[in-house]
């Protein structure tokens, strides 16, 4: 599309939407918040029964609703809160902030039913949201509440490998998910080699995963958007929470710095495997020390300048470290060696919300994000006054600085326009080896060498415009266009990304939806496909490595059966271009040569069918999800150019999630999952072949070279995966707060799922290695 055509399109688009503005109406706008904490409520429903229209609050609790110059009754509702009804006769635009009272005793039927109807009526499809309240009841791995693991229980999403928090969404890879914490990109969202996500459940307000039908406001990745929003902090009173788990403890503190004006929230978490294991390691070998820990801290401060203006500042810092230390003393000679592996995420966001008028709301954000991975070895030898230190390390990482501004313009109740621009500067460190020698010995020269890939600087830009249009009672569309661009090494890439979603409402409880979206991604994650480690490298597109692009179409059927049950079915087809993989036999642990020479570029396709049946109300709630899917890859130089199953292709994926409240004091959560085993490459046979002896320089027909015959890539399946997790939660109201004691078991019936397969030469068989046979957990939580 040429620039002149774009201008023409935008001009007509704006004129068209403005023409829809109806005179003789006024606008009521404001924020919906929790009456007790002041937390803004995301996606709260503001509904006019008289006009049969409704709107949802945005990510900052803002709503804008056009009413006629007559008495209008508005109903404001949100799950877990009392519904509020207000009657308004407004002759001029009015700002009304609405506070909703939490009420755990309320029958949630009405509210949930409204929510379900929103799902049916919305133009958005392929979106998953699990309330934090539900996530906290579900069984958890080693006692750690994990939003990513909860999302893995939904159709179209799975974990990849046992215990992992990774998200594989609709056949895409883990790099194809934009993981946004308060709008800031998080590059490695995992602790403990992927077994835990970095998100501390106590700090989170809302989690939304978009799998398809992407609104134009989202971009940068081709498979999914995970939008995680942190709490803002209680503006009314000081509150806190702490919990003790098997391997970690965490705390949350929040409260007003100035009542109703400024608030903060602070959360922290640290594991103590290292501290608890230290005495046992010392007992085994006094000269050895080894350990692993991770910690993370989140902070958020927000200040309200006025009803129209609010400033937020939030940060996240998290680090994982694994180390071994060894000390050797021989007389005056002291030797120390240390091996280490650590990775660290830091993000920060400064956000300014401003309401220009009753129809126009803006959010401007300045963010920074950094991810660093480092591994290596340090050796120090000292003898009397002399010393020598030798360090070898491998470092990689990425740093971003970003500025973006987004506008919500609501000209009337039939149009919801969003537009915005963003700019990001990326600095990639694609892997550098550093060798350093320090010494005070005269005969030894100090050395400080670094070799490997140079840092790569790049700029990313995007702009979007979208309108959610309600054409009539039946048809609603979301039409948008996004333009993204990337500049690196004097090479420019630009992509138009059209997005459209269409909803046809058959009746108030049934709708059909379809969507098309084109996505572009200018970053690649180069990963050794057999493991998911922080060693995976984030890399930019270059003049040789092109942007990843995907196109996805989806169709869906949404049925709100009654106030208790709803059902949805979706099918999708997705193509992916310019995917990258290591060349066969290549690995990350070498900075020799350019990384671009180690990779292959190819394409992928994924298609599937997803069913979701939910019970929303009553003492027993939960869902059943099923996915039938296929995900394949093709690379010219892998598998001899033939299509092969993606490693995490999962034909069948089934999950049942149930929570049951026996009383206000006792509830249980359980889930059972079943999935087809991961695709894997196995050699069934060996054979001898032509001997090209590189040492002797011989090419010989008569061979002593034995080769493994792997036949086809990923042509075998690991045994099917299934497990049952159960959690029991005992809640008690104490004098100073609420205590929750949770215990349960992960993999309750001891299913030995395969983590990987290994040849057993002694027994002449293939073995599966299982890492989590059954793991009990216990957690103590106290809110005050």
């Amino acid at each position, binding site marked *: 599309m040429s620039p002149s055509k774009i201008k023409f399109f935008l001009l007509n688009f704006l004129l068209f939407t403005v023409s829809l503005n109806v005179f003789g109406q006024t606008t009521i706008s404001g924020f919906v918040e929790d009456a007790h904490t002041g937390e803004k409520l995301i996606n709260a429903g503001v509904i006019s029964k008289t006009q049969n229209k409704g709107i949802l609050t945005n990510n900052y609790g803002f709503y804008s609703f056009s009413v006629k110059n007559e008495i209008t009754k508005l109903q404001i509702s949100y799950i877990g809160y009392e519904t509020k009804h207000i009657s308004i006769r407004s002759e001029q635009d009015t700002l009304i902030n609405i506070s909703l009272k939490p009420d755990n005793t309320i029958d949630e039927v009405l509210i949930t039913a409204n929510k379900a109807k929103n799902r049916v009526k919305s133009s958005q499809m392929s979106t998953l949201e699990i309330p934090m309240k539900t996530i906290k009841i579900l069984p958890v791995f080693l006692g750690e509440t994990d939003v990513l693991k909860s999302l893995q229980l939904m159709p179209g999403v799975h974990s990849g490998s046992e215990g992992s928090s990774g998200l594989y969404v609709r056949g895409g890879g883990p790099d194809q998910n934009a993981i946004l914490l308060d709008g800031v990109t998080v590059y490695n969202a995992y602790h403990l080699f992927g077994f835990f996500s970095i998100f501390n459940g106590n700090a989170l307000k809302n989690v939304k995963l978009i799998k398809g039908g992407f609104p134009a406001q989202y971009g940068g990745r081709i498979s999914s958007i995970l939008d995680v929003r942190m709490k803002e902090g209680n503006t009314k009173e000081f509150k806190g929470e702490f919990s003790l788990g098997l391997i970690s403890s965490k705390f949350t503190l929040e409260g007003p710095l100035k009542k109703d004006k400024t608030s903060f929230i602070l959360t922290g978490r640290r594991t103590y495997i290292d501290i608890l294991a230290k005495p046992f390691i010392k007992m085994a070998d006094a000269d050895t020390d080894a350990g692993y820990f991770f910690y993370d801290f989140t902070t958020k401060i927000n200040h309200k300048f006025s009803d129209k203006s609010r400033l937020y500042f939030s940060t996240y810092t998290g680090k994982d470290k694994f180390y071994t230390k060894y000390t050797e003393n021989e007389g005056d000679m002291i030797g120390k060696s240390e091996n280490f592996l650590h990775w660290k995420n830091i993000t920060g966001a400064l956000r300014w919300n401003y309401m220009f008028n009753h129809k126009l709301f803006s959010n401007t954000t300045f963010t920074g994000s950094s991810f660093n991975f480092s591994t290596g070895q340090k050796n120090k030898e000292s003898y009397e006054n002399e010393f020598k230190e030798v360090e070898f390390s491998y470092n990689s990482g990425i740093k971003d600085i970003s500025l973006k501004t987004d506008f919500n313009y609501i000209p009337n109740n039939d149009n919801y326009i969003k537009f915005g621009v963003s700019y990001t500067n990326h600095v990639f460190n694609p892997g550098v080896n550093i060798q350093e020698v320090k010494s005070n010995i005269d005969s030894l020269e100090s050395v400080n060498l670094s070799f490997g890939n140079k840092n790569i600087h790049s700029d990313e830009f995007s702009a979007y415009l979208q309108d959610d249009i309600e054409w009539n009672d039946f048809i609603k569309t979301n039409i948008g266009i996004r333009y993204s661009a990337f500049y690196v090494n004097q090479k420019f890439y630009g992509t138009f990304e059209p997005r459209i979603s269409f909803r046809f409402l058959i009746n108030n409880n049934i709708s059909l939806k379809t969507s098309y979206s084109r996505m572009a991604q200018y970053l690649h994650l180069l990963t050794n496909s057999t493991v998911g480690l922080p060693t995976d490298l984030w890399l930019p597109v270059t003049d040789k490595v092109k942007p990843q692009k995907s196109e996805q179409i989806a169709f869906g059927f949404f049925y709100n059966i009654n106030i208790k049950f709803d059902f949805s079915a979706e099918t999708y087809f997705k193509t992916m271009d310019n995917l990258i993989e290591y060349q*066969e036999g290549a690995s990350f642990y070498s900075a020799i040569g350019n990384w671009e020479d180690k990779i292959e570029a190819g394409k992928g396709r994924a298609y599937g069918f997803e069913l979701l049946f939910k019970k929303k109300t009553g003492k027993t709630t939960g869902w059943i999800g099923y996915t039938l899917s296929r995900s394949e890859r093709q690379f010219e130089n892998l598998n001899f150019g033939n299509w092969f199953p993606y490693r995490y292709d999962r034909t069948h994926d089934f999950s049942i999630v149930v929570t049951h409240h026996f009383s206000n004091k006792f509830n249980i959560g359980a889930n059972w999952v079943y999935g087809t085993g991961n695709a894997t490459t196995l050699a069934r046979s*060996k054979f001898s*072949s*032509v001997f090209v002896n590189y040492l002797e320089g011989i090419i010989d027909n008569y*061979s002593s070279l034995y080769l*493994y015959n792997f036949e086809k890539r990923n042509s075998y399946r690991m045994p099917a995966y299934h497990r049952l997790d159960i959690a029991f939660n005992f809640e008690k109201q104490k004098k100073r707060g609420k205590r929750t004691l949770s215990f349960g078991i992960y993999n309750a019936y001891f299913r030995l799922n395969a983590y990987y397969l290994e040849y057993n030469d002694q027994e002449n068989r293939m073995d599966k290695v*299982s890492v989590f046979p059954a793991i009990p957990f216990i957690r103590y939580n106290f809110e005050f």
Partner: protein
Amino acid sequence: MKYPLIFITGLAFLINACRTPADIDLEDIDDKIVLNSIYSPDSCIKIYLQNQYSVLDGGRADNPEYLKQAEVYLYEDNVPVDTLQHTIDAEYISEIYPKIGSKYSVDVHAQGYPSVHAEDIVPETVPIDTVTYERFSYVYYHAYQHKIFISFTDPPGKNYYMFYDIDSNGSQSTDPVIDEYKPKHGYNIIFAFNDELFDGQTYELEIISNLSSYWNREEGAVLRYKLHSISEEFYTFCKSVNAQSPKHTDDIFELYSSGITEPVLIYSNVEDGLGIFGGYSTAIDSLFIPGSDLINTP
């Protein structure tokens, strides 16, 4: 004390990975003919036939199953030219000396095995134009090291080569034609490469030769170099073998199981079978280095 006990119990579960039999049957493999033959105009065509064996049959490598009663038919440019005779072990021999530019194909039938077919050409010999050297100041075991320059003219079109430094004690190269995953800095006296970087041009291949065993050769030394022109099939096979060969450990499965690398599929041009049927031709040239440039006299 109670809490650490709970922790230790939990940790014990975590770290004690279980190993149990997987329900995957790898033992029942089909019989499949493994055909190996690389041939050049310098000798008659020989073909080696064996069976594959189960990856779990560790002892089989010492006791291979040769195919001794197969029918092996050889064709030259699609015309039958010979029926190969079994000699010993896996070897079948023909009386045919391959011709440059001709296509050779082979059909093998053996009872109990699917028949196999393979074909390949013998590529044109690409002569070495010149071999020159440049003495390095670096001294290694009393002898100078030398940069050796092997010049040849690549015919237009895709061509594949294998270079062999016959007489040195080991050579290194940083020449860009060498595949990244062959060690650039290690001993590397034979390597395969293609002409992507110099298609149709004269190219000067550069290696650094270690001539330490000639340290006392006052009369000088003659060093020989081979430039094999190899077929695309043979090149692709070599590339996959290189990739599967372990780089940091003796066992590919140690790498594979630890998740450090993806397993590599070995290329074969034997239809319904395994192995390689590849043609090549050889150019050879030599270089004389006088003693004065060979020996480092203190």
